[in-house]
């Protein structure tokens, strides 16, 4: 019989998520052996990182530059008033460590550039992309496609959120959808509840993919329009001429 790498304390911690309809012991071990990069860790990436940490992903790597400001606190669940005016990533990492001692939390205090993204992708099993610009999203998408690892893009505006799940070489990538980065607003409106919901769904897709449980939303865009209460699921098409994934 194969030895289980999870300690009795870990099995106790994950007791409620191991069993029929959730994760197998093997699936939980796969989570333990996985590394995930989440960038950034504000409104959506924060809840995503928190859920992955609590679920037992072995190495959670968070990247986020800048200092915490008051308007961030309507949605950034890893922060608190005590972080205002301070670089947020170290405090966010500290908070995550208090949530699960069985998880390694690595903190990067800036947004990855092209070289960083490629180097991180080479030592990760999956990337969750939550930055506020398409330039950063497309950079992370490219790094994931080149490394051949799954990529989950989570985005929000106002009371709506979208999720895209990419399997390089098999499904559309973000660049297939947006060959050129669409314009964006730096100070977009947002309600924290939609950020948390979207970030949590991104984490759920990551947990399914890494553990081998359930049916991931491969090659689909899920849109939750909280304003109208509408859910739309769209099958995404690859672009043959995609500058990122053609030939992959």
């Amino acid at each position, binding site marked *: 019989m194969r030895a289980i790498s999870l300690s009795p304390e870990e099995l106790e911690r994950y007791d409620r998520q191991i069993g029929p309809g959730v994760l197998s012991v093997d699936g939980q071990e796969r989570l333990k052996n996985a590394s995930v990069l989440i960038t950034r860790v504000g409104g959506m990436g924060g809840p995503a990182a928190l859920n992955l940490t609590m679920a037992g992903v072995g190495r959670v790597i968070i990247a986020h530059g800048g200092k915490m400001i008051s308007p961030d606190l309507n949605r950034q669940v890893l922060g608190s008033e005590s972080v205002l005016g301070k670089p947020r990533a170290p405090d966010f990492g500290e908070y995550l460590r208090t949530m699960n001692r069985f998880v390694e939390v690595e903190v990067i205090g800036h947004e990855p550039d092209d070289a960083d993204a490629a180097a991180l992708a080479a030592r990760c099993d999956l990337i969750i992309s939550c930055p506020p610009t398409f330039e950063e999203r497309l950079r992370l998408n490219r790094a994931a496609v080149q490394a051949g690892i799954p990529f989950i893009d989570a985005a929000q*505006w*106002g009371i709506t959120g979208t999720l895209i799940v990419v399997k390089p070489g098999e499904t559309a990538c973000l660049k297939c959808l947006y060959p050129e980065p*669409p*314009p964006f607003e730096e100070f977009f409106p947002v309600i924290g509840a939609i950020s948390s919901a979207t970030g949590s769904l991104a984490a759920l897709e990551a947990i399914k993919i890494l553990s081998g449980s359930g049916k991931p939303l491969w090659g689909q865009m899920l849109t939750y329009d909280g304003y109208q209460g509408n859910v739309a*699921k*769209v099958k995404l098409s690859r672009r043959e001429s995609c500058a990122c994934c053609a030939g992959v």
Partner: protein
Amino acid sequence: MKIQIVYTGRSYQIAERLPSEIDLSDGAKLDDALHAVNQLLSDDEQLPPSCLISVAGSHVGTLASHEDQSLKDGDELVLIAPVAGG
């Protein structure tokens, strides 16, 4: 034929005052539907060129770049204006 329209992503607010169904003549195609939608929008409600288009659950491109295609009665046309907030 009747086509269901869903406005979502960045442009969800315009759905409040727009019909969720449009009536097109038989044989109308995707670009006819998009033209009909465009006629309903004021200048400041125009959908961006990068707006994604889905017909009957499948993505067919953006407003700026897609192939025209046939529609059938009851098809759902989803218009997703890009969202990038983080």
